């Protein structure tokens, strides 16, 4: 009885977030998405243990090997074994990529197995020369299943890190844009003062680094003065172009941000992606390419995010509590940080979840074109590159399996994101 009473008391005091959580838990589609993601991330974390082979392991004798069968009954004799086993296979005729099982001996599947050819402890494995290629092998005899597990490290992290970058950029710029919409920013003397300090430091640092202290001072003063004049000229030009007030130079920050964003949005995104990819030298390590892809994708995506955030901020800016905060003398920064951003949070969470897939797809596509993560590092995209060969695609369809995992991941994020939107948006609750 007491329990019911306690529960009903909690019921009456539920916050928005609690309602949202309950709605989310009740949404079956969203929960499917959630569990798909939980399983995928679990697999990603323990990839090196769950995979039967190492990432770079290759059996040159067994390229394009079809998925191996796991048996309980011996072929022919129908003899039953408690432990599942596999057969070794022999390529017959030689170089035909046609494999026949060698029925002479069986190779039981061992759990917590360490391959005698070297490598770490794995959840399962078989003694060589038999191979446990669950999803078959690729053109150089590498286990597709193993590489899918390792490839998940790229795909599943790039989206998360990517949205941090792009939303950091998009929310900052969009927030500024929305906050200063309709409030042209006066270009006062503080622009020059800031520049002069910065120029003093910059010139002093570069001069001092290469010569003596007096050279540093001289260059610092030079940078500061020349820069200040240039800044003032720039301000005049900007205020002339953007039609600021005559007596006071003004810059409409919102206008400038939105126009430059629109300029970027006028490129079809994949064309821009390929164009920007051309900026990166070919011979970089996979890790650098990984981060550069994130930066490129963030750069492409910020205008869209900034535009949405600007809209959100504009609608919140007109609400009473912001006016109240302004009335009691809250600074701009404080109003943005304490009142506006927390109120856009629920929408941002939804947007973030729904835009993670674009990073996964972008990376997969670049890697598919061999412009992203390169061999030997596995990525779902670069595993699909082999399918570009139509003959391979026709005869060895298991090399398409990484695509299925891209599909599952994207589906998971989409389902979860839609569920979050339904749960967090008060308009959707009816």
């Amino acid at each position, binding site marked *: 009885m007491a329990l019911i009473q306690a529960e009903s008391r909690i019921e009456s005091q539920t916050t928005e977030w609690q309602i949202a959580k309950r709605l989310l838990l*009740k*949404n*079956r*589609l969203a929960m*499917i998405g959630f569990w798909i993601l939980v399983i995928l991330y679990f697999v990603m974390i323990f990839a090196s243990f769950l995979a039967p082979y190492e990432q770079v392991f290759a059996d040159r004798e067994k390229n394009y090997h079809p998925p191996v069968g796991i048996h309980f009954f011996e072929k022919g004799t129908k003899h039953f074994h408690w432990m599942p086993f596999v057969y070794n296979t022999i390529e017959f005729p030689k170089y035909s990529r046609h494999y026949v099982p060698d029925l002479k001996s069986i190779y039981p599947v061992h759990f917590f197995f360490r391959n005698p050819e070297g490598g770490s402890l794995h959840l399962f494995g078989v003694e060589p020369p038999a191979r446990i290629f669950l999803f078959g092998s690729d053109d150089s005899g590498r286990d597709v299943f193993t590489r899918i597990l390792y490839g998940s490290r790229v795909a599943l992290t790039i989206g998360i890190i990517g949205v941090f970058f792009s939303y950091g950029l998009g929310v900052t710029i969009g927030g500024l844009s929305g906050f200063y919409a309709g409030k042209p920013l006066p270009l006062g003397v503080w622009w020059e003062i800031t520049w002069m300090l910065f120029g003093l430091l910059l010139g002093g640092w570069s001069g001092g680094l290469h010569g003596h202290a007096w050279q540093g001072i001289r260059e610092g003063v030079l940078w500061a003065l020349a820069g200040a004049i240039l800044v003032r000229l720039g301000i005049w030009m900007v205020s002339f172009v953007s039609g600021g007030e005559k007596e006071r130079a003004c810059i409409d920050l919102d206008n400038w941000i939105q126009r430059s964003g*629109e*300029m*970027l*949005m*006028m*490129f*079809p*995104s*994949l*064309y*821009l992606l*390929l*164009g*920007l*990819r*051309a*900026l990166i*030298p070919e011979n970089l390590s996979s890790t650098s390419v990984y981060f550069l892809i994130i930066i490129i994708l963030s750069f492409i995506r910020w205008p869209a995010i900034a535009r949405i955030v600007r809209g959100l901020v504009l609608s919140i800016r007109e609400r009473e509590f912001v006016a109240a905060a302004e009335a009691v003398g809250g600074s701009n920064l404080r109003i943005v940080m304490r009142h506006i951003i927390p109120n856009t949070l629920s929408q941002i969470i939804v947007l973030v979840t729904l835009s993670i*897939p674009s990073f996964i*797809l972008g990376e*997969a*596509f670049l890697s*598919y*074109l061999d*412009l992203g993560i390169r061999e030997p590092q596995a990525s779902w995209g670069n595993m*699909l590159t082999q*399918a*570009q060969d*139509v003959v391979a*695609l*026709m005869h060895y*369809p298991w090399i*398409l399996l990484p*695509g299925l995992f*891209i*599909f*599952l991941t*994207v*589906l998971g994020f*989409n*389902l979860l994101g839609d569920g979050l939107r339904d749960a967090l948006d008060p308009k959707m609750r009816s």
Partner: protein
Amino acid sequence: MIRYIAERLIIMLFLLVGISFISFLIMQLAPGSYLDTMALNPQISPTYIAQMKEKFGLDKPWYVQYGHWVKGIVPHPVNGNWRHWDYLDFGISFAEQIPVFDMLKPAMLNTFILATVAVVVSWIVALPLGVIGAVKQNGYLDQGSVFFAYVGFAVPDFFLALILLFLAAHVKLVPISALMTAMILSSAAFALLGGYFSLDNGVTRIKNGMNFLRGGLLTGVVSFGIIFAIARLFQSADFPIGGMRGSDFEYLSPWNQYLDLLHHLFLPTVVLAVGNVAYLIRQMRASMLDVLRAEYVTTARAKGVPEFQVIRKHAFRNALNPMITLLGFEFGFLLSGALAVEIVMSWPGLGRVIYEAIIQKDLYVVMGDLMLSSFLLIIGNLLADILLAWSDPRIKVG
């Protein structure tokens, strides 16, 4: 109206200047060039490379190069001769040794064909489904399109293209009946899953679940039926694995050339349309639902207007306005999608050209391609803007 269009054209001009600058900047910052690769070839003399550098002004500072490039694109007199004018000179392709525009012109046409057909097909499919989805909410067509939208949205373009290529290569090997059975069985399996995990719970779940099941089945059967019917139409069940024209294209009669083009167009269009239809159905459904709640719809019903007229005249027309805005974004979406499809299915469009040019570091081709692809996008947006202004008089004034 004319004033509005003129305004848009002026804005477009500014956008083009900005876009040309960004395209140029990107290629300027890119490390290495085609000439560097040529310099590694011992058969090409350094003097020739120096000549090429001088010819294209690659040894000049970037602003001179940019000016040179822009001057070639806008109408300009040839060699100072005011009688001969030249324009749209995007420079020369280092790899192919032909003017860039000669390379890009057919590619632009091919991309335009692909994108336009995909737009038309996906709008024809998506609009009725979206409207029905909104009018008969949670009906089996609605549930089917929701199901389809989730799947279509999550499949990467290039992966779908690969799967269709695989199917195209196998259609002649596997009996059609077996494929059809597999298709129906898999859609039934999906539908059963969908039925179990349906959107609502409680009493309506069983009804919705049944609808989801029927919807999933319908999606599978109908989509396969369409493929099958069209395959029969071409009197051969196999689809070409990529390319735009058959090897005997030149020897065909115009009508057969047209059929051949359609035959090659089919798979790329399907790939492009799947994602797009999924997106459009959702948008149309949401927009229609919004409008159906409006008071003028209630008024129309109260006046005794027949339901079909209410939907067609009062709801549908108003729900279409936000969709026309989307039409502008469509081009961007489809051009990007087309890039992936073109590369996988070797469709000779802008996307394929830019991919090859980037690999070869063919400076002027990449710049021209970026410029022209965004030009297509701007034209698309402009058309959508004009269409919107025409359909919604409020836009012109405000």
